[in-house]
Every structure is written in C-alpha cells, then in structure tokens.
C-alpha cells in the first residue's frame, strides 16, 4: 500500500538515498535538508550535516526553519563555527557529498545561478552563495533541479558551479535529481537512472535541451514508503518545501 505523494516528496526520498551512513554532508536548505533528515532517520543514522554559515548538526532542527540561519538551526547543533571554518573542512576533503541547485544545467553538470540571456534579455540571478564552493570541493555533488527545457541547456551562459572539466582535482557531479527523474552524471554524460512513476522517456526528452541517454530498461524511481512520507510530513508539516499541485502515485 502506498500513500499519495508529491513530486517533491519523491525528490526528497531520492536525495536521502544519495547519503550513505557515516558520511559528512554539505546540506543546504529545502529538499536536501529534508533529505538529510530522512537519511538520518532511516539508513544513515551517523551522517553529519554542515551548513555554509558554520553550523554543524548531527540531526535536523527540531522546529521548522526557513533559512539555515534561523535560531532553531543553532539549538542542538554540535558546533557553530565560522563560514571559513566549514569551507576549510570542505577544501580539505572532509565532506563526502554536497547538494546544490541552479537555474540552468548542462550535460557536464555545470550549473548557472549568476546570469542568463536564455529568454533574450539579460536576467541577473542571485549568484553562487556557497554552491560554487560545494561544486568545486565536495567529494561528489548531487544536483537538484526543476526539469524544464529552458533550464536544461546544451551549454549554460555562465558556470557558477563547475561540473566535470578536464583536470578536475576531486569530486564533480554524481547525480541529478529533477522533477522528472534521477540521472547519473558521474561519467560526464547524462544517463537516466530512473524516471519518476508515470513519467515517459518522451516527456523527459521534451523537457531537456540536450541529448540524454534513456535506456529501455530504465526503472521507475522507487516511491516513498509510508515511513518516509511520515517523516517528511512531520518535518515539513505545511508542505512549505514539498507541497506541489501535481499529486501523483
């Protein structure tokens, strides 16, 4: 028996599965934060979460947080350091996996969150924040994106968060989780690892502005279990991050 779930809930579950036990995770906000909490509550009880403002937690905040700087994210933290301290740990190679998102992605996993002219006119986006650092320095990165044609481009206008490139010292994009599926980026080409239930290869191709490998036997993304959904709804009771209009399942 499965409950109804939203696409974003499915994405949280997919994010959680990217975290292995005992890993050090650069967490970020929104879906990755919920994914971290879910992983802790299920298969990765010893995972550690770092936030770019300097907070280190081994469990999510007890109260809902809107930003990583919200006071409940300090309460119960194991440490509250400075930004340069956690970035130093990242640069040292102490972080196994980091989650990042962007406005645009290309087949090498480059993300753009700085500026784009894709709509014809120049659009200024907010910028990197810590994403460029996580992309550069984490052991591997997991990308989370809205799957839309204008966002999936053959080449992004500006590489805010570097993907695969020749001479990369460490890490690089491993997985891309979208509103349509989960994609393997570890080889520097985009290959569908799973499509979300009900999503067809044709839908994915139409929503992707570059070539993508979708094998015939590509499985469906495993749907959330009742326990997983219960966790997510406990952590995000109003569906602030995980609500969406498309109920599926």
């Amino acid at each position, binding site marked *: 028996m499965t409950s109804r779930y939203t696409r974003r809930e499915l994405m949280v579950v997919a994010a959680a599965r990217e975290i292995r036990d005992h890993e050090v995770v650069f967490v970020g906000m929104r879906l990755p934060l919920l994914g971290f909490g879910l992983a802790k509550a299920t298969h990765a009880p010893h995972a550690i979460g770092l936030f*770019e*403002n*300097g*907070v280190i937690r081994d469990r999510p905040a007890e109260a809902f947080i*809107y*930003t*990583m*700087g*919200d*006071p409940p994210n*300090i*309460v119960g933290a194991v440490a*509250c*350091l*400075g*930004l*340069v301290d956690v*970035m130093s740990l*990242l*640069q040292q190679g102490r972080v196994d996996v980091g989650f990042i998102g962007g406005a645009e992605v290309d087949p090498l996993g*480059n993300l753009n969150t*700085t500026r784009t002219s894709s709509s014809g*006119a*120049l*659009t*200024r*986006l*907010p*910028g*990197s*924040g*810590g*994403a*460029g*650092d996580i*992309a*550069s*320095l984490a052991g591997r990165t997991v990308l989370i994106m809205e799957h839309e044609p204008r966002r999936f481009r053959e080449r992004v206008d*500006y*590489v*805010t*968060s*570097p993907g695969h*490139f020749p*001479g*990369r*010292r460490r890490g690089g994009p491993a997985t891309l989780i979208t509103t349509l599926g989960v994609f393997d980026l570890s080889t520097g080409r985009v290959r569908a690892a799973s499509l979300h239930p009900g999503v067809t290869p044709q839908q994915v191709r139409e929503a992707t502005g570059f070539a993508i490998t979708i094998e015939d036997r590509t499985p469906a993304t495993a749907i959330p279990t009742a326990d997983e959904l219960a966790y997510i709804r406990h952590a995000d009771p109003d569906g602030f991050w995980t609500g969406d209009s498309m109920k599926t399942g």
Partner: protein
Amino acid sequence: MKLKRSLREAIAEQVHDGDAIALGLALESGIPFAAVHEIIRQQRRDLTLIGPISDMAFDQMIAAGTVAKVIAAWVGNVAGGSGYGFRRAYEQGQPRRIVMEDHSNFTVGLALKAAAMGLPYLPTFTGIGGDIVRGHPRIRPIGDPFGGPDLLAVGALRPDVAIIHVQRADAQGNAHLWGNLGLTVEAAYAARQTIVICEEVVPEAVIRSDPNRTVIPGFLVSAVVEEPGGALPSSVQGYWRRDFEPFLAYHRMSRTPEGVQSWLREWVLDLPDRAAYLQHMGEANLARLRVSERRPAAEANFAP
C-alpha cells in the same frame, strides 16, 4: 576614548560617500537593518557593499540609490528568491547602474580573511573550472612553490567599515556574539573601522566573565551602538526570532520601482529612527518575536 554613539552619530561620523561597507556577515541572522536604514536616510552615495549573501539588506540599499558596487556571493531575498532592486540596477541601471564583483561564499570569505591576516592574498582551490574566477579582478592563478597543482590567489579585501550586530558588548567595544558567526570575525579584523551594534551594552564584568565569547576585541571597534531590535526582521539568537513576513512583503512590494519607493517611504524615509520602526511594527509583533524562553549555555567555569 569614548566609543558609545547613537546609531545616527555612528553612521554620520564613520560611513562616508564612496566607502566600502561590510554588513550582513552572519548571513541570515544579525543583519544590521537599523544601520542599513540609517545609511539610506542619511543619503550616502556610491557605496561598495561587501558580504557573503546579503538577504534583502543590499537590495534595499541598491533600490535607494546608495550603492555603486556590490562584492558578494549572492544578492537577493532568501525567503523570496530574486532581489528586484538588485536586478533593476544590474539589468537596467535603475535607479543607477551598479558594478557587481561576483564571488562564492568562500572566496569573499578568503578575501576578508586575507586582509584580516595582514596578507595580500590567500590561496584556494575553490572555483577552479568555473566562470566566477575567470578574469576576476581580485582572483589570479598562482603556482604552488612546493610543486603541487596550481591554485588561485584571492586578493585581500579591506572594508572601510564593518557593521556588525551582536548580543552584547561593553563600553570599550569588546563584543560577545553567539549563534551564527559567518564572516563576522573576518570582517571585523579586516575593516579599518568596525561599528558594533548590540542588543545591550553590558558592564565590563559580563564580557570578562567569558573572554572566549569575545569574538571582537574592543581595540578593533570604532563605535558601540546600543540598538535593541536593530537587526529585525532578521533574528538574533536568544533575543529575537526571525520575522518571516516582512521579507515576503518587501519581495512583493519591490517588484516595481514605485512599490519599492513606497516601501522605503513607509519603513525608512518617513521614520526618524529605529525606535519609530519598532513602534511602526507594533507591540503585538514585537511580543511575538521577542524571545522570552531561556536555553542557557551549560556553565563554563573560569575560576583560576
């Protein structure tokens, strides 16, 4: 050397047209909005703003026309996304064109830290392979004298003034800050002058009871301002919750130039000072946001 100032005095004396100002250093908490608004009221011009992510503080200053340049990793509205004031200035030159020096959080942190350490630069591996560091005015490729792979040198960034909101300080400027730190310490060390805004000016004995909590020694501080609630609507650990709605309200209002001007009039220009701002918020809102619970830190005994 008397350091205590009203906020109006501190801004009037220590923030000048053309200055480079670091603020919003603890990221989403402790943003010195009272100082931001006082700078707008005093109509400073041609400022350079420095910070990691700025939340809506930079956007307000840009929309008010005070800003010529931004040095930051992220400029927008954490709750809402885009900063419309920033976008209008960058995309259309409204109300004036601004120059953007893009960074990642780490590179802006290293730029401040280089200055804090008295160095011309700090090396790093971050950003290699991306466009932020390509042709960057403050970032150059360098080799490793020990034969390892090439790195980048992030040049020192020395603000004229850092503006910092903390929980408490003594009259000499020795400041206790807890909760989020972000780049607060780096900026205070790096800056030529540091304005400390605090919830409470406390007796020396309070600060000296816990010298490890003093993240900024007073001899680096150029002014101490007691301005409780001066960081609202951002949070201050143990003092104020984050007020979420004003970030969304500003986001909505700032979609149009008229909207943002109307917002600036209501919340900045038509108010004389922070006390008036808090009054305009209303006691019910203040009561909702004021932290009255206690979760004290476990005792640390400093007895010798």
